[in-house]
């Protein structure tokens, strides 16, 4: 099972090029999970202690306004990373994550990985570099979305 997890994680672009020793540390924090369509994977305000490597299915990242139905901010699918609030205090989710299709994912225990990153700053730097890239891509997409591209 661990061998299978290692293979799946190693094939994920997010972890591409990660040193074998670091990979062992990451795999030690990983488990396979499934979420049925309609399930909330996490909700705004809850403790953010996990992040997910999506293997299949689709997740809507949602928020809500008073007296309004939830709004889907973005969708994430196969190969993408769900969640980075586990990385920074106060370790609380800022949005809902809602499985809009059946989801298979690798769940990575954020607290476990944070502790390993504190103990091994080289691992911490590798993980942080990868998350900064995700944050940059999503910030870029958000900025473009703010331009209301299709209005002209």
């Amino acid at each position, binding site marked *: 099972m661990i061998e299978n997890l290692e293979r799946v994680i190693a094939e994920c672009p997010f972890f591409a090029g990660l040193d074998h020793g670091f990979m062992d540390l990451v795999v030690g924090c990983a488990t396979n999970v499934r979420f049925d369509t309609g399930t909330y994977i996490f909700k705004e305000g809850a403790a953010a202690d996990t992040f997910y490597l999506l293997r299949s299915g*689709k997740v*809507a990242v949602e928020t809500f306004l008073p007296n309004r*139905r*939830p*709004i*889907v*901010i*973005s*969708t994430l*699918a*196969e*190969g*993408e990373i769900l969640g980075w609030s586990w990385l920074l205090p106060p370790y609380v989710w800022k949005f809902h994550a809602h499985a*809009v*299709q059946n989801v298979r994912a690798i769940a990575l225990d954020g607290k476990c990985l944070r502790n390993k990153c504190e103990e091994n700053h080289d691992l911490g730097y590798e993980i942080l570099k990868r998350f900064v890239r995700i944050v940059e891509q999503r910030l870029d*997409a958000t900025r*473009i*979305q703010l*331009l*209301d*591209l*299709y*209005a*002209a």
Partner: protein
Amino acid sequence: MTAAIAMQPMIPQPHAVRDVVEETADTFTLTLQRRDGAPANLFEPGQFSMLWVFGVGELPISISGDPGQHDRLVYTVRSVGKATNALVSKKHGTDVGVRGPFGTGWPMHEARGHDLIIVAGGIGLAPLRPVIYHVLSHRKDYERLIVLYGARSPRELLYRKELAAWARQRDTQVLVTVDYGGLSWRHHVGVVTTLFKFARLRPAHSLAMVCGPEVMMRFVARDLESHGLGRDQIYLSMERNMKCGVGFCGHCQYGPHFICKEGPVFSYQRIAPLMEKYEL
């Protein structure tokens, strides 16, 4: 360009409205047929016509129909002003004058034997629909067809039934995204560039055709480059204030180019320096 058009490009041919389909709240698809019963002027995917709304004005509109259907011309029009509103309000049987087709088409010949990456935003899917029709009716001439389409919301998507039908074709991948999706929306939410990571791209083997607002095309071209396509593999459909349609009047001048004659389709390699200039 047909001989007749080449000789008399400024004289509109009388056409009758045969059908009007409401695509979205403000966008309509009109089917026109010639009054004299003759076949429609042949066109290349990507070309446009000048449509006369008699008594109101003339509009440049891309042809959005099937180039294999020779008895009609089809246009998808967003109602944004007096002339477009008058055009989309036309009833069955009423008259519209047609000049053209004008301009350069998409590089269908160069695309043969390649994967085609179609990227459209909003009403930008209209000038690309003839490409999709052409590829699907000449399937052996092309490799993968990838259609990436973005709009503000599900309500503003064009050709929804066709998108679903195209997605069922072999070697065809259709991905649709919106900026604001309701809870019943089951496709992607995010800008059109976020779809690239889900597309089965073979950059070295591909040609990209992009149409939408210019700012969207700029970001799409940038991302296509970052995925490994060369500028000479990326084609964009540009839009300016086309009037005469034949490069006489200069209204659509874009740097050294006349969009109506040298465009509207340009390779990104040719126009990238102009797209980087402010206020052009």
